[in-house]
């Protein structure tokens, strides 16, 4: 088999690998009695999906976000991101997973106040070993994709809430991750701005990004192609399973 053929086989294989796969995930927090935040979760999200993990507070969706994003390890079960089993990796290797494979969008944006929009987006590549010049080129392209080509040199305090969230989304996308996790991305925004962010998520998804939105907002969840509803640490309803 030639190298080119091998590459081609690899590529076909990879396209069939789900972006995210959880099997029997249990997350228990120590205490008396211990709190079981996730109780045997099985979830597969394919590449190119746009899904909502939705539930009331205390349903385990925040823990889901942490486990899916490798910010926390499951007590039991396995987590695969783009085929990599990550539930037993060391902290250092998990950092590499986050740097290469996962992008995060947070409710509070978490932009660096002292940096321009461009540099904030470029921090999405800060830990990937790419030169500052290349990071900026990629950041400029991504800012353009989220419609902020004219705001590159603005600092967060010179941007509206919606613009800040666009910057944060661009930062999550700049490393072209396998998976984008958005935690209440419209939670701090008014309804009109929320709609535009929603539209942006759809648009980015249509361009190929795999996005999981974690939210308590049913309206937002219902606007997305797939809903995974949580209650008491278990999946209560998954629109993909039933359809």
């Amino acid at each position: 088999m030639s190298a080119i053929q091998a590459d081609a086989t690899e590529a076909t294989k990879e396209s069939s690998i789900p972006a995210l796969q959880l099997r029997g995930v249990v997350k228990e927090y120590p205490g008396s009695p211990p709190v079981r935040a996730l109780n045997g979760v099985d979830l597969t999200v394919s590449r190119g999906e746009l899904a909502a993990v939705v539930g009331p507070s205390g349903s385990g969706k925040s823990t889901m976000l942490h486990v899916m994003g490798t910010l926390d390890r499951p007590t039991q079960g396995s987590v695969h991101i783009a085929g990599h089993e990550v539930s037993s990796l060391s902290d250092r290797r998990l950092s590499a997973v986050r740097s290469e494979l996962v992008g995060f969008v947070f409710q509070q944006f978490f932009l660096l106040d002292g940096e321009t929009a461009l540099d904030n987006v470029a921090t999405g590549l800060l830990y990937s070993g790419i030169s500052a010049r290349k990071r900026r080129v990629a950041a400029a392209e991504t800012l353009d994709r989220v419609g902020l080509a004219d705001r590159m040199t603005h600092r967060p305090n010179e941007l509206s809430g919606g613009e800040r969230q666009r910057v944060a989304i661009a930062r999550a996308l700049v490393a072209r991750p396998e998976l984008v996790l958005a935690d209440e991305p419209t939670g701090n925004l008014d309804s009109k701005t929320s709609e535009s962010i929603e539209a942006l998520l759809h648009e980015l998804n249509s361009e190929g990004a795999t996005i999981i939105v974690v939210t308590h907002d049913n309206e937002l969840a219902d606007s997305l192609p797939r809903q995974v509803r949580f209650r008491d640490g278990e999946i209560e309803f998954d629109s993909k399973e039933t359809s």
Partner: protein
Amino acid sequence: MSATPLPRSSSFRLSDVFATSLSGLTTRKLRTALSALGITIGIGAMVAVLGLSRSGSAELEDRIAALGTNLLQVSAGQGFGGGDAALPEESVSMISRIGPVISVAAVGAVDRDVLLNDVVNPAQTGGLTVKTADPNLLEAVNGTLAVGRFIDSTTGATPTTVLGSVTAERLGIRSVDGTQVLIGGEWFTVVGILSSFDDQSDEVETPLFNDLDRAAFIGVDIAEQLFETTRSPETIYVRTTESAIDDVLSVLPATADPENPEEVEVTRPTDALEAQEAAESTFDNLFLGLGAVALLVGGIGIANVMVIAVIERRNEIGLRRALGATRAHVRRQFLLEALLLSVLGGVAGVLLGAGVTAFWASNQGWRIVIPPEAIVGGLIAAVVIGALAGLYPAMRAARLAPTEALRAS
């Protein structure tokens, strides 16, 4: 399932660590400036103390060098009767026979006043003395003439005089074109004025300076002829080879006055300056100690600010972990931030200390000396303090769990 291999770790380039830490400081300029201030004051104080002390010693060293440490001064001590004993007339020639002695010159007392003219009240020129001097006095004491020439063996027999710098100033004489002064009721022509032995600072007084600056010198012969003075010297200045000073010192009393060696006082004029230098350096230690206390306080200030920063910037730490930073990357960032903060304070402190030294030294007319070891030492101290102060906060930042750090504040 298989996939392309992952790197073993994310990476954080050194230049990026610098840029990130620097940006952490420039984002909070006022806080950065205030927390660096403690280090600035501490290092500034230490550099200034070392600089000023070094500039001051340079001044003293210049004077010691000008005088020469190989100059010895022989004078008659107190006699048994309490009155001043005199040195024997032949002591000069005796001393000059000591092997390592380069030159010998004597000065003798003349109990007369020096006046500008016969209408001046003698009280106005009090403190000025008249002395006899050997022609080679300047050679022995490294003295120089401001104007004119010194008494030689010929003019020493005529009524001519050379004035010390203070004497000339008191009498208002600046040139030697035929000016005359009245010494013991006789007119003497001024042929020369000496440069001051004490021209830089009057903090240090040695008998040498006072005696020579405040004298009017006349020849031994004319003194004997007009005022019937004895030829026995009051003070003898001895210049020896550098290596034999101690040997010469030990034989001088017996050589100068074999009959009463215990009555001969031998001193080394540079000793007074060296004592002064030593006295000044004791204060240095006090101020260096105070500077060290300021540094310690500054270091604690930085540690304090960094601990607060870690608490305040929890979300930033969480974000960075989410973006792929390892614990080590976070630790590096905060440690370097503390280091840069401290070094910033240190650089400002070195500049401040150097500025204070330059200002004060030039004010005092001293040579400005900023010791390089103070600069290097100050910067090293800043680095060490920054590292120590940043260590604990940086470890705390690194230990923070990402899920904890990302919780809304």
